[in-house]
């Protein structure tokens, strides 16, 4: 399998696009015609062939462009990548996990040779050929977590586990749905989730934390989360709200299909061996409404979900202002027919 990498942007002229193949494999997050919070975890042990669930760390046509976008964001704001001093071992664990997974899952794109602690890593799409000493950060151009997450799509939170809680003590966060690593760094699981409406009262966080504390080595888990974003922008951060917030007001009935995107996060959870930390990759997928409705089941279902969503959830997810226009647009693709169970296209 050879991937044709797109030459595209996630800012300014927004040339991002999904190929027909990318639309077909999009991780549509709704398995029924309504939505409410749940701890919708399942084992991350492969999935349907060609789907984003198949490999441990999905690499798709947006890889090279996403890494370019990350580099721009980091140049403008280096605090998007932080690692507290006790987290370096977890950074090496993460580097090991990603390098081994990618080299095994995509041997035509990545290769890893290990001779004791002397490692040789080749990343063909990004043109990287690096020899280094594992566990010796002076042999890499930057810290191990930053090094590997500049070469892996999606955001990464690396959580320390202690006191029966998880702590946001390291991360690489440049494609986030309006949260800030610089604000959350050092917080525990309940602190960084404090802004989420309803879920705490529902006991969702207690149950989710209990599950996550017990995630075991070799048994990663995953879930999908979602929101709505205007324009295909990865960096929807609080730090840059002044850049993307006003774009929400550019939606019209004429352009909503092109400019309004469903934003889906494939979240995975991995116990790291040497540090006992928990890696939490948050991979972002974007699809415009006009591309999404080319799958009839998804058009019908997204219409029903967004139409019936409680107002506070629409506000938290940041699209309450555009909801009427979005629902009107999607209504044109909902003939009232029944939808099949599950997330995949018919």
């Amino acid at each position, binding site marked *: 399998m050879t991937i044709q990498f797109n030459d595209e942007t996630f800012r300014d002229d927004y040339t991002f696009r999904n190929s027909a193949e990318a639309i077909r494999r999009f991780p549509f997050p709704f398995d029924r015609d309504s939505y409410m919070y749940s701890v919708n975890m399942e084992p991350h042990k492969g999935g349907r062939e060609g789907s984003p669930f198949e490999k441990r760390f999905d690499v798709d046509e947006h890889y090279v462009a996403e890494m370019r976008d990350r580099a721009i964001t980091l140049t403008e704001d280096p605090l998007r990548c932080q690692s507290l001093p*006790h987290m370096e*071992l977890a950074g090496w664990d993460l580097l090991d996990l990603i390098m081994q997974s990618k080299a095994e899952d995509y041997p035509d794109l990545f290769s890893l040779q290990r001779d004791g602690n002397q490692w040789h890593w080749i990343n063909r799409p990004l043109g990287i050929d690096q020899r280094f000493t594992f566990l010796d950060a002076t042999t890499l151009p930057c810290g191990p977590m930053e090094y590997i997450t500049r070469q892996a799509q999606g955001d990464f939170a690396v959580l320390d*586990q*202690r006191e029966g809680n998880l702590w946001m003590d390291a991360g690489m966060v440049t494609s986030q749905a309006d949260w800030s690593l610089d604000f959350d760094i050092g917080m525990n699981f309940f602190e960084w989730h404090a802004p989420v409406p309803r879920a705490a009262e529902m006991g969702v966080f207690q149950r989710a934390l209990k599950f996550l504390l017990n995630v075991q080595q070799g048994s990663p888990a995953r879930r999908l989360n979602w929101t709505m974003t205007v324009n295909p922008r990865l960096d929807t951060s609080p730090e840059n709200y002044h850049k993307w917030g006003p774009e929400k007001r550019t939606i019209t009935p004429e352009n909503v299909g092109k400019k309004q995107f469903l934003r889906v996060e494939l979240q995975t959870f991995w116990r790291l*061996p*040497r*540090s*006992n930390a928990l890696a939490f990759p948050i991979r972002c997928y974007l699809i415009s409404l006009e591309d999404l409705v080319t799958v009839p089941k998804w058009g019908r279902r997204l219409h029903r979900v967004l139409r019936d969503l409680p107002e506070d959830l629409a506000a938290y997810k940041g699209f309450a202002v555009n909801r009427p226009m979005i629902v009107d647009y999607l209504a044109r693709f909902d003939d009232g027919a029944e939808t099949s169970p599950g997330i995949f296209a018919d």
Partner: protein
Amino acid sequence: MTARQLRVAAVEPLTPLVTRFRFECPEGGSLPLFSGGAHVVVEMPDDGVLRRNAYSLISDPMDGSGYDIAVRREDAGRGGSRFMHTRVAVGDLLRIGAPVNLFALDLTARKHVLIAGGIGITPFVSQLKQLQRLQLPFELHYAARSRAEAAGLRLLPDLPQVHLHLSGEGKRIDPAVILQGQPLGTHVYTCGPQALIDRVAEVAAQKGWPRAALHAEAFLAPPTGAPFTVTLARSGLKIEVSPHQSLLEAIEAAGVDAPWLCRGGACGQCETEVIACHGRIDHHDHWLSDSDHAANTKIMPCVSRFQGAELILDR
């Protein structure tokens, strides 16, 4: 649970009561690495009874060539350690779970003080290797009755930070002396008899140590006891728990799937709702709160038992 079949590569008595076992991949190759303080669960097919006991890993966390554990023979126990000592030989195949760590080092600590009593030395053997590799400040205090019984002597490095307290030679361990004068930001880890853990907690509280700086692992084996009957409401089964079986083992033997992780009353994974309790639950866990224990609405089947007329569980 992800368990894999491993080959017994070495069996070596460390003391008359403690034996080291080494497990390796039968086909060669490397095992998942782990962090200091991690344990594995060993499955023992003991004459039709499947026992699962948790043992701390005592090998180097960075060495995937094999897993080492040290097992103390407990003749009054349910039979797991006796099985290991009398039935397991080099070349045998046993199923071993993936490493789990419920007694990890807190890497935010400025200094690590490790206090072991008896066979409680085992989780510290791998922690020491991690601390040395990370070049973190530490001291270890190891209490045992006599040199002959101190299995840890064969497992510990010869370092000035390692202190031996042999009660038989008149050097009883004194947590008050150990905690005296430790720098701010020190964390203390205790593993051993409950009395030692309680004493360290008491001294630390007197000295005003923050609770988060205290870590303890009681090596809690499921206690034996009188047989009892339990009704599993969801499965529609009535099961007998024999004297040398834990409730969790009896549930598993009945073919009912129940979650678990530590099998020692610490992790909370097997917590089960009690629908009806006419009698007394003997709570032995460290997971439920005192009020939960008093209310008898939850039970940890890995370690707790029951006496009385009827116990109905939501399982």
